[in-house]
């Protein structure tokens, strides 16, 4: 039995350490450790609740905007505010754009290098690459000369001896299965996506002033003026720019991203049987399609799928979320194993790991800055796969059609969804569905403005003097990485308690009081590792969740054993 530590896990947001025990080329056990803590929840105490979203948004700069939205929703919930239709639609547009841009970046820039061998691309025949590209899509950048030019750039880069971010990677590892032409095609699209993403995200700049960290939210709605007749408000010109960018976004998703996922997945079908994980899936649901504020009106539904049983959807109540800290670097006043709902949540940092510098977390009961959230005491997986499964089990027509088509194309059954590859596919499908929603929300916004409804914020409770002495609220949301919740307690116009339970806390959770692993840990068990010094297989499964550690803090309960070899790889 060899125990290895991988730290840092790169191509994620934040600082993550994974330790695994490997026997006979297979991961037998895993520990996920978040290694950074900032104390956002403590910093928020005593501040103006209307300021909270600006602070909370900084939980993450990659999944930017999502914490701002969860935060204003939490305070609006506490103050019983209902936002105007214009604000709802603008928020949908900002959040939907985030999904599309973030998922594509994840696939090409954070995950692809686990599947695509950049060096192999230099050996490809550009003609074969062009033939492959043209066989899967009518995307215009697919000529022999185009791929030749990309290859020349890559060759020059490799020949320079300065490989920059591509140095010291696992190129040539037998786990890479793509033939050279497919590698070259993927590298070309890696570069194209880099250009594409910064264009598409301009939608957020048009609606939020900038990205990352757009700045147009306010508690009660949005700050911007909307008036088709005012050149300084959200103008027709800005709206038509958004239309143009949305078209560009949809084009790339339909003609590059989706065909690439299908093509690459075809070479890695064995990964439909790896990384199954916990098998419990939680989705809060999101993208309100009406102004009722009720989850029944969401485009993506709320619910749980338990034990991989797609025949029924269990209900979700925010009151059933609780966290423990038996394996986390925190202490609770009344015992670390006491499940605490976020309104009663405590953030008392208390480091109890090894003194740095350290080589292993083995032997430490507490091993992460992540808490251990549970739903009715059960560990859950959240994210695009959870959303698609809950929607599928709910009979959501768009999702059913999309999932069935994808499974048919790949020639695999529904059981393939519960896997590393399933997460990749679910993320792609979700992107396709949401990019298709953007134009509709924009059209509804324009129609509503045309009726003369220019309301953008409910300012009836802007004055803190109008608030009750005590109030508490919650803001549930689906962030690109999964179910996100902010909980706030307000006393005397100030924040008395603020807690975030974020997607990567669910997925990256350490063991709970009963010793049950979190989603990443569980998914890693059973993962084959060809060469522990090049743990590309471990990265595949961890990256399939799209970890985001800065959010999560607010990934090992060592199996005691002697003679365990510890290596840091």
């Amino acid at each position, binding site marked *: 039995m060899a125990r290895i530590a991988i730290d840092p896990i790169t191509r994620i947001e934040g600082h993550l350490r994974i330790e695994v025990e490997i026997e006979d080329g297979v991961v037998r056990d895993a520990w996920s450790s978040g290694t950074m803590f900032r*104390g956002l929840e403590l910093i928020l105490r005593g501040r103006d609740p209307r300021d909270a979203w600006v602070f909370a948004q900084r939980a993450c700069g990659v999944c930017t905007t999502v914490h701002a939205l969860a935060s204003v929703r939490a305070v609006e*919930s*506490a103050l019983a505010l209902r936002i105007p239709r214009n604000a709802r639609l603008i928020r949908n547009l900002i959040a939907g754009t985030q999904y599309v841009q973030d998922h594509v970046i994840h696939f090409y820039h954070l995950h692809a290098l686990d599947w695509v061998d950049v060096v192999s691309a230099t050996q490809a025949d550009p003609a074969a690459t062009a033939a492959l590209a043209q066989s899967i899509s009518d995307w215009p950048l697919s000529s022999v000369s185009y791929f030749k030019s990309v290859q020349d750039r890559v060759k020059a880069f490799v020949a320079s*001896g300065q490989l*920059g971010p591509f140095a010291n990677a696992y190129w040539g590892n037998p786990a890479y299965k793509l033939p050279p032409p497919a590698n070259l095609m993927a590298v070309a699209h890696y570069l194209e996506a880099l250009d594409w993403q910064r264009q598409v995200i301009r939608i957020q700049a048009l609606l939020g002033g*900038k990205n990352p*960290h757009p700045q147009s939210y306010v508690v009660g709605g949005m*700050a911007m003026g909307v008036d088709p007749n005012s050149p300084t408000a959200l103008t027709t010109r800005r709206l038509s720019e958004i239309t143009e960018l949305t078209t560009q976004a949809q084009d790339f998703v339909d003609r590059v991203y989706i065909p690439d996922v299908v093509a690459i997945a075809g070479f890695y079908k064995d990964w439909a049987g790896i990384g199954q994980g916990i098998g419990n899936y939680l989705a809060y649901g999101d993208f309100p399609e009406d102004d009722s504020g009720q989850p029944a009106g969401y485009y993506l539904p709320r619910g749980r799928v338990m034990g991989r049983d797609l025949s029924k959807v269990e209900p979700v109540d925010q009151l059933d979320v609780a966290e423990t800290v038996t394996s986390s670097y925190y202490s609770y006043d009344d015992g670390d194993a006491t499940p605490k709902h976020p309104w009663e949540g405590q953030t008392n940092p208390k480091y109890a790991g090894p003194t740095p510098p350290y080589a292993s977390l083995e032997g430490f009961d507490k091993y992460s800055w992540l808490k251990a959230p549970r739903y009715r005491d059960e560990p859950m997986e959240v994210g695009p796969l959870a959303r698609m499964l809950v929607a599928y089990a709910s009979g959501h027509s768009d999702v059913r059609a999309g999932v069935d088509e994808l499974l048919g194309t790949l020639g695999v059954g529904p059981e393939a969804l519960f896997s590393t590859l399933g997460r990749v596919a679910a993320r792609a499908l979700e992107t396709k569905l949401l990019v298709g929603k953007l134009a509709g929300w924009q059209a509804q916004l324009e129609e509503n403005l045309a009726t003369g409804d220019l309301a953008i914020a409910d300012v009836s409770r802007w004055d803190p003097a109008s608030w*009750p002495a005590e109030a508490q609220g919650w803001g549930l949301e689906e962030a690109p990485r999964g179910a996100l919740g902010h909980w706030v307690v307000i006393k005397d116009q100030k924040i008395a308690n603020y807690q975030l339970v974020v997607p990567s806390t669910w997925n990256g959770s350490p063991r709970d009081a009963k010793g049950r692993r979190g989603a990443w840990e569980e998914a890693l068990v059973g993962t084959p590792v060809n060469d522990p010094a090049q743990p590309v297989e471990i990265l595949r499964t961890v990256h399939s969740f799209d970890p985001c550690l800065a959010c999560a803090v607010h990934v090992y309960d060592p199996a005691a054993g002697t003679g365990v070899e510890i290596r840091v790889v």
Partner: protein
Amino acid sequence: MTTFDRGLTALLAERGVSRRAFLKFSAAMAGVLALPPSYAPRIATALEKAPRLPVIWREGQDCAGNTEGFLRASHPTVANLILDILSVDYHETIMAPSGAAAEESMLATMERYPNEYILVVEGSIPRADGGVYCTIGGRTFESILREVADGAAMTITVGTCAFDGGLPAAAGGPTGAVGVSQVVPGARIINLPGCPMNVQNLTATIVHYLTFHELPATDSYGRPLFAYGQLVHDQCERRAHFEQGEYVIAWGDEGARKGWCLYKMGCKGPETFANCPTVRFNDRTSWPVKVGHGCVGCTMPGSWDQMTPFYRRLPPPPPFASEVTADQVGIAFVGAIAGLAAIHGTASYVRKRRQDRAERPPATQAGPAPEAPTTIAASARLSSDGESNGGLD
């Protein structure tokens, strides 16, 4: 021969960038750097001869927002290539290898290019409790930073956290977070605060370094004057409305629709030095005031304490301050008092002082207050999908 030894011309040609596009970029950079247009050819010449600079980008207590800002580098193609011709040898968020292989990439660059590589730092450094609040590869971020800053030609801090501790250093933060200059005071540091920084300013700083072989002129906070030399308020497109007394007084009101001044909604533009109004973000698309929200002062020292509450109106600004820099303003500007070594004691003193000076909060202007929803807390506990969850959950 490595790329490091080659000029830019060959690289650009390989990448299909036209000479014209390149010169246009050089002219734009001269603009950002506030240099006369006549400098554009000099910039172009310097860049053409520039070697490919190795870069080590380290992240501490960060949110990767500056990394994302970096990925949004505008001026399609050319600016991206300028950044591309930097050899980004270590950057956790984008690099292919993980674990020890990743750390090897950094060590290789440190050994191969001593005193030549550029260090970029994103995020703050926690110093409390032996640095346990941020470890990478089992080492504290502080120990990594000390090691890597030692051999750097210069250190660029991106974002407010690396500048002065930023958000983790705000009141209530338990981790003892500080900025880079407090950990390695002797290093050649240039600070690009902002949450996140504007990537145009990062590009311009690098271009300046390659062109003139020195750091751009800075204020006493180490911020380049070309980017942080003027008040937001004095460059603001809504300034005329301030002069005319036309203000937004409630979200969505007539003033909001007509693009009036956000001073009464708590805009921090009158006390914030930054070039957001002129350079804007995301390919010059927009900036916060353009979409109707006030500046939150994120480029200023101690901003998370000094500039909050965000919606409280500032004291009246001086009539016209466009010739003033942060250094000259002195005590009138709280940022200048707090300084780079802002500690909580000083910060709270300043905050208190500000509160004493401040007018009553703008909140009182938001229209008639409705009856207070006194029963929310009780009913919200009962059901997560009920009416009490006003609007959206």
